[in-house]
């Protein structure tokens, strides 16, 4: 396959970036999107040009590092996969592909396509945990949890923190991510003691980071590689409003 790439190149956080056109030649349809970029980068290195900077780590859809906005969609045109799981067979020979970094003031560009997603870490540090040591392994069924609840908590816990929800949202809102992290603990007995503090602290940190406000478009849910659902956002709203209006618990 031969492709034309329009890639966002930006020297550093302060510099002004622009789209630069590259040719990707002799690409196998079985390559992943990141492997295709590796090929382009090898060419650039041979020509002693600066290779394209992009984040990646596991390359199997579990770490959430890869973060490319491809042809107007985070993680590209396919449903429920990350960029590293996207294959070149999803594109047509001769196609032009626009590749941009996540766009959000809370995710500043470090270089080219790599963004600083430290905002997510700080939201997690504000309350996305249970503050007691887990201790030894308890007996099975010591703490009864209905299967549906356990499954729901597990679904929420599959969020890999990639930030595609923010990237997809027209408001650059982080509510899908935050609500997944709130939900995975709010659903389980171990999360209860800190449930209402947690949601207040995490929402406050989310606001402080400068993410936008959800308008329930559902773009996040549609683009999330792990299919985190809007139900999580409703649950976060419910917990937050309960905490603020019906409970006395402060952060």
């Amino acid at each position: 396959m031969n492709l034309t790439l329009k890639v966002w190149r930006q020297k550093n956080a302060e510099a002004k970036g622009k789209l630069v056109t590259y040719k990707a030649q002799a690409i196998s349809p079985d390559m992943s999107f990141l492997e295709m970029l590796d090929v382009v980068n090898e060419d650039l290195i041979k020509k002693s040009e600066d290779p394209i900077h992009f984040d990646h780590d596991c390359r199997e859809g579990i770490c959430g590092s890869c973060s490319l906005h491809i042809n107007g969609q985070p993680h590209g045109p396919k449903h429920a996969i990350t960029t590293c799981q996207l294959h070149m067979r999803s594109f047509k020979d001769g196609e032009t592909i626009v590749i941009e970094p996540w766009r959000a003031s809370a995710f500043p560009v470090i270089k080219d396509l790599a963004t600083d997603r430290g905002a997510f870490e700080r939201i997690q540090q504000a309350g996305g945990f249970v503050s007691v040591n887990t201790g030894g392994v308890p007996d099975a069924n010591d703490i009864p949890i209905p299967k549906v609840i356990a499954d729901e908590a597990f679904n929420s816990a599959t969020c890999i923190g990639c930030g595609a929800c923010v990237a997809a949202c027209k408001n650059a809102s982080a509510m899908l991510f935050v609500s997944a992290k709130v939900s995975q603990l709010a659903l389980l007995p171990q999360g209860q003691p800190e449930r209402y503090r947690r949601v207040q602290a995490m929402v406050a940190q989310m606001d402080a980071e400068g993410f936008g406000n959800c308008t329930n478009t559902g773009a996040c849910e549609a683009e999330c590689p792990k299919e985190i659902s809007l139900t999580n956002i409703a649950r976060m709203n419910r917990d937050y409003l309960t905490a603020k209006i019906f409970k006395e618990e402060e952060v």
Partner: protein
Amino acid sequence: MSNFAQTFSSSLGKKLIMSLTGLFLCTFLVVHLIGNLQLFKDDGGQAFNAYSYFMTHFPPIKIISYLLYASIIIHAVYALVLTIGNKKARPVAYASYKGEANSPWTSRNMGILGTILLVFIVVHMSNFWAQYHWGELPYAKYEVSLTDPQDVKVTPIPFNASVAEPAHADYVDSQAGKKVLIAKDLYKIVNESFQQWWYVALYVIAMAAMSFHLIHGFRSAFQTLGWDNNKFVPLIRFLGVWVFGVLIPLGFAAMPLYFFFK
């Protein structure tokens, strides 16, 4: 900051305000539509004019109407504040952005639709509401026979600056065997306004905007409240699309069209 101020300046607090004011405006639409159905009565405006007087003079309704004006303003102001925040959250726009691939058109255009509605509300209120309160309005006198309610005599009392404004009256004249109503003739103003094609067009366009605004807005308000219980979501979606997105806008749009083609 107090806990209270903090709540309502947070993202979720602001959304709560949008949701509650929006739902309140939705309930108002239902009442407004049902009341205005009296425009379709072919009685020279008797029922409609009596209803207009009641709506502007019955104290509990007056209180609710002030709440309503406040809700419109708060809904618009908070929408503006939230939108500015959202624009700031993405200072550099995407060169390529495929919104249609992941979200419905209505949900991405609430601001534009809302702005059309706000302009409409201003025009609508200055033409009817402000006219009714402070304008130079004609009156109409309706005399209904007590024995035969079909026997109605309508006497228009045009506005005349040189004589005192007639007093509103609603009484039974048992000697003459008549029920008499003297009321401001808002019906006439409505009828005259809707003879202009561009005015009718404005109304129809605004109702189309309202339909799209509510198709997303109604269900969205419940999501914001965290009310996404599986038992109710289908009902909420049904009401949002068929009642608030179709039935109510159609009902309102039928009014100017009715007068235009009558």
